[in-house]
């Protein structure tokens, strides 16, 4: 945790995108392009069982029948899937029991990023599963967690060691037919994290995954599956960075969460993918399908998302409130600066009785950024006593950016109470001057004001992420007030 904070603090000292470096590690790549052969190669490289290969092939064939959706409020340049490399893994070495067998270059990369790969149990308190370019490299604290019966490992390992669990839950929240990018992911997903919290267990530490896109033209197609069995609790952190690239990089991940009866999952993300340069060239395309199923009674899933990066963000972390008395929450801060675009929000589907959902979305637009909130609150016919509260706020910095809101309310039950509030504001020159006159520079003033605006959401983050998020917000808006 200490190292996480150091990394963040060293970031802060310059507005430049600090993660714009490459790792000169041996990467085993397959030739670019997508075909059934490529899908088979991926599966073979990972020594996957037949059933998983079938899942991939089924998905790929379905993908061929689909077209990319055109309804979002985004300008997306055409993507040539034949120009993308769909698999890149650091060269495998024979596994040993100690951490020291990791490729030294790889270790250096992780140190640069400040990931506490070394097990400093009492300092970090965070178990980290580090993903570098499609393959989970190391999982820490595995043993400690194993004592409690908690499984936290790479998706690939889970397929081998816990195939029944994977088979039972994979695709149950995001079916392979769900949408264009989810189907693509289902065909070519490389790796990700798998987490299972057994009945009655409260996970004692924050679980964390750390992503990085390294090689040129590689897409990242992670797949995460998080299962909280009855009466369990887990708080999960996801933080992402990527090095500077000129070509756009596709990031089409899937996150599925299942919360059984009386279980609770907190899923927090701080996303800082390369946003493109000041002219809007380059940057990551972040097209993610994240969904949680509140399967059991009284279950609860909370999403807390801080998005400052990516050239284009397109995601709707959602909750399906199937269990009676279940709760879904979505807290988000999304920043678009320079030429970034975002079409993001959430979907809360109320199915069970007495279900509750809370949505707090804070958009910040600066430069020429275009920020759209798209939210769906759906109350099904038999969802008695559903409650929803939505608040979507937009903050505009300057007069060349845009904030758009597309709220959808589909309520089919008369007992539902659905509240929606929206505000739009800008940072006034008077507010900046007031700070200046007290000795606070304009940059610091914007940082203060923006963090004040986002505070309600930032307060939902686990402590160690809250610090990074605050700094990231400030850096991402540097130079935005002229």
């Amino acid at each position: 945790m200490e190292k996480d904070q150091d990394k963040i603090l060293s970031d802060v000292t310059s507005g430049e995108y600090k993660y714009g470096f490459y790792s000169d590690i041996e990467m085993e790549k397959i030739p670019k392009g997508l075909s059934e052969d490529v899908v088979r190669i991926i599966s073979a490289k990972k020594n996957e069982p037949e059933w998983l290969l079938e899942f991939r092939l089924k998905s790929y064939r379905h993908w061929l029948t689909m077209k990319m959706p055109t309804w979002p409020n985004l300008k997306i340049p055409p993507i040539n899937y034949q120009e993308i490399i769909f698999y890149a893994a650091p060269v495998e070495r024979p596994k040993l029991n100690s951490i020291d067998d990791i490729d030294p270059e790889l270790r250096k990369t992780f140190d640069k990023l400040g990931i506490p790969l070394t097990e400093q149990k009492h300092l970090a308190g965070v178990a980290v599963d580090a993903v570098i370019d499609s393959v989970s490299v190391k999982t820490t604290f595995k043993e400690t967690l194993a004592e409690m019966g908690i499984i936290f490992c790479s998706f690939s390992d889970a397929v081998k060691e816990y195939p029944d669990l994977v088979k039972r839950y994979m695709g149950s929240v995001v079916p392979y037919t769900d949408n264009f990018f989810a189907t693509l992911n289902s065909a070519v997903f490389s790796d990700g994290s798998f987490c299972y919290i057994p009945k009655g267990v409260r996970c004692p530490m924050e679980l964390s995954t750390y992503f990085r896109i390294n090689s040129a033209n590689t897409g990242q197609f992670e797949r995460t599956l998080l299962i909280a069995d009855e009466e369990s609790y887990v708080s999960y952190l996801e933080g992402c960075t990527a090095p500077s690239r000129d070509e756009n990089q596709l990031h089409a991940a899937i996150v599925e969460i299942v919360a059984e009866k009386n279980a609770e999952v907190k899923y927090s993300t701080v996303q800082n993918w390369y946003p493109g340069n000041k002219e809007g060239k380059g940057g990551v395309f972040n097209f993610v399908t994240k969904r949680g199923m509140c399967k059991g009674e009284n279950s609860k899933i909370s999403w807390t998302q801080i998005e400052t990066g990516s050239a284009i963000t397109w995601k709707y972390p959602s909750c399906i409130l199937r269990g009676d008395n279940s709760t879904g929450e979505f807290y988000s801060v999304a920043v678009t600066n320079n030429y970034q675009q975002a079409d993001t929000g959430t979907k809360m589907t109320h199915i069970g009785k007495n279900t509750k959902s809370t949505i707090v979305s804070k958009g910040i637009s600066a430069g020429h950024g275009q920020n759209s909130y798209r939210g769906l609150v759906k109350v099904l016919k038999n969802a008695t006593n559903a409650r929803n509260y939505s608040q979507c706020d937009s903050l505009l910095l300057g007069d060349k950016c845009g904030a758009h809101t597309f709220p959808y309310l589909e309520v089919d039950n008369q007992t539902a109470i659905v509240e929606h509030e929206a505000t739009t504001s800008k940072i006034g020159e008077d507010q900046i001057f007031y700070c200046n006159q007290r000795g606070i520079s304009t940059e610091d003033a914007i940082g203060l004001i923006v963090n004040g605006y986002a505070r309600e959401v930032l307060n939902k983050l686990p402590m160690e992420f809250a610090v990074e998020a605050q700094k990231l917000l400030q850096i991402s808006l540097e130079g935005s007030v002229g």
Partner: protein
Amino acid sequence: MGLKSRQRTKVKRQKVNTMLIINNLKASIGGKSILKGITLQIKPGEIHAIMGPNGSGKSTLAAVLAGREFVEVTEGTVTYNGKNLLDMPPEDRAKEGIFLGFQYPIEIPGVSMVNFMKTAVNEHRKHNGLAPLSASDFLKMMREKKEMVEIDSKLANRSVNEGFSGGEKKKNEIFQMAMLEPKLAILDETDSGLDIDALRVVANGVNKLKKPDNSFIVITHYQRLLDFIVPDVVHVLYDGRIVKTAGKELALELEEKGYDWIKKEVENNIPV
């Protein structure tokens, strides 16, 4: 030492000691000329009152001194402790000890007073080569100043000026002044909109903060505040110029005769 040399030394000391020297200052807003040649000097330990009818340029003068960009200085100089004030950005002027009590303090939702003041105080300290205050030392300082200026504890725990009444906003300006301990405090119509009790509290705060090495410019429309904050010098601003300067009795004379008296004298070119 002979009498003559003692007098010469006294004059030299006065020149070095002058905190603020405004010389023939002219300023416009949106092309319209507002200040038409202000000349003024303030020494440490002095309280200057600037009075005048609406539109005379009082707030514009405050804005120029604080460094607001929308006011364009077209002529003249302002020297603060020997430095060219007009060259400095507003946050530097603040850190050099200039404080503006705003006429209409703005709200900054989401930014707590504590966080705001801590940032401001530590920026000032950094500028003066001091280490930032620890959280506990800062809170202790806040408590002391809150008591000194009789500001309600609740106010300090909220977002900057959010939901404050007019009077509370003005008291909050004085509280911030107490926290930042400026060398030159400019109070821009701090008394407007205050009832007599709030006025007394504000004035008390100012009087408690008065020291031999700091100064105040009290901009006011009415004489009432000057019953409580007794000025050393009173200037009357009319149509962008200082048309009369005298001691504190001038304020009482204005109260009695009204601004029309000044206007008539200026129109009739009677030397004032």
